[in-house]
């Protein structure tokens, strides 16, 4: 990083107001050429608003943007592209119907003349070039993006972002779906781009990574600029304290003693499904929290989905002592399973509906008589869970889409708990949720376990599993390669099992 160079981009006193929220309040940010500048903050701190302003998707209410020293207005994405700003969005912006090569060259298609011929050969060459640069060999250029997994899509998105003339690269949680190896490759690329003089804005919740990757870190809280500090001086605890405005040493802390009954809430025996799951056997006791770790293609996603009747399977699933056939989510709910899916926006939340209807959605028999809904019962039910889970809303009628991610997740959790499940299955329960809401969700899970619910969590965040679970199972290529008790659980051995480099099992004597 060249210390004496003039800033590439400077945001001065940027403010942006949405109905009911001051998303940004006089925020300052400056990025030097050849600098990786991280922006951290809880959800709702204003990071995405800031990104959207740079991308030309939103206009600030006040304040100014200086790009290469010149005061600039960015009225739309076209101008943003022209300036050399490239954005990698968290929720990917790819055309599923187009091929990898075509997606990577999308912005070329924006500037070429409409009646000129598409230079597919050039598209392919450019794509091959960028993917090579990223060290990605296993993606076929002609495959439609819809056939790629989420991790590969993320890589394509990154390739697309760096394929043009980039001066400022903005990345919003670019590695949320990447494996550690792929992330490492991404970081190497980012350092390479930095060395080439490109300015990089890096938004992430993963603070350890941010500290090791970035040169400087800017903290936002509730739309306000808090501080910019050198990464060398930053610590995770220090950043969290600035992000939430208080110390959060409670985050991964657990007060429950882990005592559990001998009753089995869920038992899975010799379960196989398609090519993704092979002979899985596991059990979750009432009052126990069991975690499932594994890389994106390990089968952990399919396993939890199987337990909710989303896939066909061979083998036996036992819930509350009874063998059940789960051929649909309905049969799973009837058997006493509740499921909190990973994709909150598309699968979990009924975004257009009210908070109370979201909570009642899985308990319709309980709030209706002869097929007619009882509004009073819906309100009572919703009110119970809003209070119990401390969901922050202005009214029960508030539309789900207007809630923050953390509050949405609490509502979905409320819907699941309202069915009084024997087994609660959570898939990536805190993905994209800010630190404060995370802590609250963990508290709720611990309380539920205390009340005797068996909980199964599939997560790609190891600290979360290690902090919350009584037992952790590790999957690799569709089989269980490791089992760790609470006292044994640590990141390195779990990762080694996840990558298939070792196996580790608990001896019978240690099991309860």
């Amino acid at each position, binding site marked *: 990083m060249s210390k004496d160079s003039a800033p590439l981009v400077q945001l001065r006193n940027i403010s942006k107001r949405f109905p009911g929220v001051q998303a940004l309040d006089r925020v300052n940010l400056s990025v030097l050429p050849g600098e990786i500048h991280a922006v951290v903050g809880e959800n709702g701190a204003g990071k995405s608003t800031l990104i959207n302003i740079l*991308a030309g*998707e939103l206009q600030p209410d006040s304040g100014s943007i200086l790009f290469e020293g010149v005061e600039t207005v960015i009225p739309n*994405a*076209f101008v*943003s*592209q*022209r300036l050399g700003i490239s*954005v990698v*969005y968290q929720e*990917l*912006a*790819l*055309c*599923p*119907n*187009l*091929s990898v*090569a*075509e*997606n990577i060259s*999308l*912005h070329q*298609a*924006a*500037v*070429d*003349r*409409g*009646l*000129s*011929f*598409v230079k*597919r*050969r050039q*598209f*392919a060459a450019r794509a091959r070039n960028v993917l090579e640069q990223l060290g990605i060999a296993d993606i*076929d*250029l*002609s*495959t*439609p993006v*819809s056939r790629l997994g989420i991790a590969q899509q993320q890589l394509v998105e990154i390739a*697309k972002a760096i394929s043009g003339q980039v001066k400022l690269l903005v990345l919003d949680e670019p590695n949320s779906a990447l494996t550690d190896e792929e992330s490492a490759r991404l970081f190497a690329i980012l350092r390479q781009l930095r060395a080439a003089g490109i300015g990089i804005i890096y938004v992430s919740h993963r603070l350890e990574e941010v500290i090791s990757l970035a040169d400087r870190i800017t903290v936002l809280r509730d739309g306000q600029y808090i501080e910019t500090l050198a990464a060398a001086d930053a610590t995770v605890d220090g950043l969290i304290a600035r992000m939430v405005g208080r110390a959060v040493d409670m985050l991964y802390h657990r007060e429950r003693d882990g005592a559990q009954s001998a009753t089995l809430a869920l038992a899975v025996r010799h379960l196989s499904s398609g090519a993704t799951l092979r002979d899985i056997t596991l059990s979750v006791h009432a009052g126990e929290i069991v975690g499932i770790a594994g890389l994106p293609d390990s089968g952990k996603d399919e396993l939890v*989905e199987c337990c909710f009747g*989303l*896939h*066909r399977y061979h083998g036996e699933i036992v819930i509350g002592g009874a063998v059940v056939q789960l051929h649909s*989510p309905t049969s799973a709910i009837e058997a006493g399973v509740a499921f909190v899916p990973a994709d909150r926006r598309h699968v979990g939340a009924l975004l257009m509906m009210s908070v109370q209807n979201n909570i009642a959605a899985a308990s319709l028999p309980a709030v209706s008589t002869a097929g007619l809904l009882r509004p009073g019962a819906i309100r009572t039910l919703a009110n119970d869970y809003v209070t119990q889970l401390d969901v922050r809303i202005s009214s029960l009628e508030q539309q789900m889409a207007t809630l923050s991610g953390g509050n949405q997740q609490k509502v979905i959790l409320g819907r699941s708990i309202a069915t009084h499940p024997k087994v609660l299955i959570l898939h990536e329960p805190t993905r994209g949720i800010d630190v404060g809401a995370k802590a609250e969700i963990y508290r709720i899970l611990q309380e539920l376990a205390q009340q005797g619910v068996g909980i199964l969590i599939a997560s790609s965040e190891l600290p979360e599993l290690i902090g919350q679970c009584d037992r952790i199972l590790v999957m690799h290529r569709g089989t269980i390669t490791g089992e760790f008790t609470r006292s044994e659980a640590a990141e390195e051995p779990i990762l080694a099992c996840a990558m298939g480099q070792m196996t580790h099992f608990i001896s019978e004597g240690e099991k309860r």
Partner: protein
Amino acid sequence: MAQQATSATGQRSTGVTMSERIKRVLRARETGVLIALLLMCIFLWQVSPAFLTVRNLLNIGRQISLIGIMAIGMTFVLISREIDLSVGSIYALSGLATGMLLIAGAPLWLALLIGLLIGVSAGAANGLLSTYGLLPSFIATLGMMSVLRGIALLMTNGQPVTINESSGVAPDTLSAFFFIGQGRLLDVIPMQLVFFIAVSLIGWILLSKTVFGFRVYAVGGSDKAARVSGIKVYQTKILAFVIMGFLAALSGILSLAFLPSGQAGRTGVGVELDVIAAAVIGGASLSGGEGTILGTILGVLIIGVLRNGLVLTGVSPFWQEAIIGLVIILAVGLDKWTSSRRRAA
């Protein structure tokens, strides 16, 4: 989608094995439609001697042309993730306006120009309402369907417009106008079919070869991805509607020149459904991003050959509509039911 994938790979010399390429061709939606079409033709050839004659085939070619020209436009609109229900009304209004201008003594070029401009303007209005106007195109064009039909009724006072020697059109103009609708190129190929072939060719180049066509696919695939890449989403969609409007007008004018009569209350009523059906049978997706000109042509042919075959084999005309409906359901259904993209949930 399939055509996109193959056209991208078609020019790649490495990385794709022959068997992979054959698999892609077999998987393509067009292949299924083509096989269905060939089976139909073989069947008709066996049961009806009249089917496989030059005369009958050219006849089919003429019958499908007007729907076909519009289906090419609809392919652009559907791929961009919009829909146009107003094509039947544009078809009527443009044709009738051209006819009235001719009767009023306007020179042929002016009548044609104004007829086509009406189509272009209607398309632009549809496009503007569906983008900057923030209306779903289903609603915008449903409204425009009525508005344009109403204008046509007002303009003609509900009376039929008939072009013939006694309508006061100059003999030269009359014969030139009739040639576009009823003439035959080299005394063999019906002019309507010539127009359909030309429109198909231009449409194919525009959609699969040019940057504009690429943008149409991008916008239909994900308008967010297209927008953040700097592609002008609204402009692209408006242009798709304008192309549709232009082609609906062309079709309407050809229809008047062929018949040579039209009536605002009847001409082109319900034609949008045939047009959409042809594009959808050919693989265009109502959820955008998918479809090809080749597929649409095959879809148009399926409908044309089916209608012709039902007539040749003496099936009651009342059955025809029902059978065509079943074919639409089967064509799209087979694709979905056998698709590898099918999910358990």
